[in-house]
């Protein structure tokens, strides 16, 4: 990694230590104050062009920011990802592109919907009505709707929180469209947007792996059972050491020359197992929010459930065979 990348890494880590109280974020959400801080540091608009007050960073710098923040707060990393990897490419070249200034400065909240389908919404004279269930993002002014097309919907919206197990800082909720919302743009580009997200998503996954694992390593270094430290028990320290190897290989692959398809596959295939074992290593304490490790397990399975399924595996197989496959 280049010197400037190491400096960025340290800067972001320092920012997280100083400003991100993850327990508070999990219980209260990402406050406006945190959003403003992220904007002032240039993290919020990491890849957004300078003309829209973004930082216009390269991929490596952007991924370093996501990784470092996800170690501490996967929710905050996901918020940055939504703006830079989903919203920015969705509005690029459309009339909504000018809203990027607000996005980079923290004045625009964006929600993402992967669940609802086109027939959940009715359109009448350009105005939308209906309810979108379990949308990722709270108090949003814009929604990116990934269904048959990628649509940008502009509010105002009605909003109600849902209890949710993952990315609690962002919150999931139901959004009501009451003949006030409009479609700003609609194109079929879900596939290309998500494929271009493999690197950033892998960076978030890497940060979560690193964060969970470090908690497990720290805990097993000080916690005793049967008169010995937990790390003195081979099955525990061997397993954690193997996971650190995976983490290290993943990091080299992400910031190196490895194919993003393979990096994403390794990240998604590792994240739940490592987060789960990190909970295990804490014994009963791991099951409680207070120790800050169970959130990685919740967030990991949510991330895998949303972004990695049969379609991604098919794409990977076709990538390997370099041809379209007629799956049975």
């Amino acid at each position, binding site marked *: 990694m280049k010197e400037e990348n190491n400096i960025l890494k340290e800067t972001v880590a320092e920012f997280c230590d100083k400003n991100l109280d993850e327990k508070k974020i999990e219980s209260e959400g990402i406050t406006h104050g945190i959003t403003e801080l992220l904007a002032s540091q240039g993290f919020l608009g990491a890849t957004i062009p300078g003309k829209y007050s973004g930082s216009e960073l390269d991929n490596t710098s952007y991924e370093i920011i996501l990784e470092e923040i996800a170690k501490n707060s996967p929710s905050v990393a996901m918020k940055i990802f939504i703006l830079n990897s989903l919203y920015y490419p969705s509005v690029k070249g459309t009339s909504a592109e000018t809203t990027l200034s607000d996005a980079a400065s923290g004045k625009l909240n964006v929600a993402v919907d*992967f*669940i609802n389908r086109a027939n959940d919404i009715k359109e009448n004279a350009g105005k939308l009505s209906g309810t979108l*269930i*379990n949308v990722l993002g709270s108090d949003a002014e814009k929604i990116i709707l990934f269904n048959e097309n990628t649509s940008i919907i502009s509010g105002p919206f009605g909003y109600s929180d*849902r*209890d*949710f*197990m*993952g990315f609690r800082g962002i919150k*999931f909720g139901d959004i009501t469209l009451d003949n006030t919302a409009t479609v700003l743009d609609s194109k079929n580009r879900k596939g290309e947007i998500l494929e271009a997200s493999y690197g950033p998503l892998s960076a978030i996954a890497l940060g979560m792996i690193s964060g969970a694992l470090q908690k497990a390593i720290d805990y097993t270094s000080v916690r*005793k*059972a*049967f*008169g010995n430290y937990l790390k003195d*028990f081979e*099955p*525990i320290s061997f397993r954690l050491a193997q996971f650190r190897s995976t983490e290290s290989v993943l990091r080299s692959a992400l910031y190196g020359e490895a194919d993003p398809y393979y990096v994403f596959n390794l990240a998604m295939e590792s994240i*739940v197992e490592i987060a*789960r074992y990190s*909970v*295990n290593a804490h*014994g*009963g304490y*791991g*099951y*409680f*929010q*207070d120790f800050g490790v*169970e959130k990685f*397990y*919740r967030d990991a*399975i*949510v991330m*895998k*459930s*949303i972004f*990695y*399924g*049969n379609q991604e*595996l098919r794409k990977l197989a076709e990538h390997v065979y370099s041809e379209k496959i007629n*799956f*049975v």
Partner: protein
Amino acid sequence: MFEEYDEYRNKIREFALKEFTEEMAAEYDRKEEYPDELRKKSLSLGIIDMQNPAKVMIAIEELCRVDAGLGIAVTTPYFGSEVIMLFGNDRQKEILQDVYKGKYILGLAVTEPSGGSDVAGLKTTAMKQGNKYILNGSKMFITNGAIADYLVVLARTSEDPNPHHGLSTFLVNTKSKGFNANKLVDKLGVRATNTAELQFNNIELNEDDLIGEEGKGFYYIMMFFNISRIYVAAQSLGIAIGALDRIKSYIKENDIKDEDSMFRLSDVGTHIEATRQMTYNAASYLFEFKPKPELTSMAKAYGSETAVYAAESAMEMLGDKSLYEDVQRIFRNAKIMEIWEGTSEIEKLVIARYILKGE
């Protein structure tokens, strides 16, 4: 195995489907509250029969299949009762009858803040002073801790070079002076169950609060674990079947035919069948008073891994749909199976020890 209980099983299934509505399960999960009305209802309908361990096991499986949070909540008011049933005196057994009738809630307090797996390393003491025992110490992650009327407590009554000696069990009234319970919140799952941290500050216990013989507490608790681990295996089996139920519905409703999904479905089903065979096999020895701890630990360790595997599979297979279904609750509930009543690591040590002993 246990086919003679098919009718009983159907009755439990019917009860769970009727009473454990999604709204109720979600509400108690959200509020982290104990569903006391449901406990009373289950008692009045004869859902729990603590005199028959096979019925208890089947009830746990079927209730957890629908919702583990509520299922465990209605089957734990009797937690620790086997210690009294096997070793208690007449007065304690009278109290136990009131527990069975629903008048009291019972709990078992073994784990301490400084160590969960290392039972013999516990620090709580009950030293004898005259004809009293004085209980001091603290306990952690105690199920029913803040709602129990009585607790079976393991404490050290004498120092001994062998740490397994010198431990004793007591039946402690939670109204005793010096008892304090602090409800623990923000659990990942099984949030309808009550979990607490306890403090004992100079609680005076009478000689007839001692359960069984002084100094044999460790062995009583290990014997109890032989039973309770079967019940955890049954919880795991129920959770895994519940996850499979959701996967099957999703596949059918969405007409999913891809082979990757079929293979995953097949793997989950195979794990469940193996768990069922292991659990019922271990239970068949235990319920004939010929326990085989290695089989029990195998069932518990494998079963808990199966519950987690099935729950994670359901999350991944349903994808974004899993996020607003009860599947996410199954996922959160499953994880505790690998932790309580002996972590998977402890179970593996027990299994290895018995395999070597068999040679």
